[in-house]
């Protein structure tokens, strides 16, 4: 079974401070991990995936297979980063199955 855990429901940081949104997963094989974001009054949308290894809106995430983690990081938070962030895992078990975490609300304080 695949499982995604986001331990923080709410993370409040000041503008300009570093951000780290935690994500841990459990899956015995080689999953694909990604982050989705939902800004206020907008649709859920893909932010980044670990395979692409790119920085989106200043965010990066590194897959750590030893710790089974995929934490989302940004060195300097901006007010526009305030949103709900969902970590998700995709794994193949006859078909690609996606499992979402419970989400972390990031609140950037001006």
């Amino acid at each position, binding site marked *: 079974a695949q499982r995604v855990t986001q331990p923080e429901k709410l993370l409040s940081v000041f503008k300009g401070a570093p951000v780290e949104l935690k994500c841990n997963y459990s899956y015995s094989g080689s999953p*694909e991990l*990604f982050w989705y974001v939902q800004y206020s009054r907008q*649709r859920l949308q893909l932010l980044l995936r670990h395979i692409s290894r790119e920085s989106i809106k200043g965010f990066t995430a590194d897959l750590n297979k030893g710790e089974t983690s995929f934490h989302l990081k940004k060195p300097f938070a901006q007010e526009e980063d305030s949103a709900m962030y969902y970590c*998700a895992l995709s794994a193949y078990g006859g078909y690609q*199955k996606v499992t*979402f975490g419970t*989400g972390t609300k990031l609140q950037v304080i001006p």
Partner: protein
Amino acid sequence: EAGVAQSPRYKIIEKRQSVAFWCNPISGHATLYWYQQILGQGPKLLIQFQNNGVVDDSQLPKDRFSAERLKGVDSTLKIQPAKLEDSAVYLCASSLSPQDSYEQYFGPGTRLTVT
């Protein structure tokens, strides 16, 4: 390109009533997903279609929920009869193919309140 469309956006019903939600995915997207998102939780997959066939409906409460995608394009999710615990946002999403499941395009959702 036009995004995923869902209707209605809001629905309030009494328990034991029935309700239906409609979803039109992005044109050309073969895979369609229905999720249930209860307040404070992440989206939970109810059913996944590949064209007009069901790929996964393991978490669909089949005694009261049903879904169809007859022509492999738009889809309908029905609840009959509704329970209080069905109050949630129902999200529809689509992707180009199952291999692209990481990049799902979501609709605005339908907020269901069961009283």
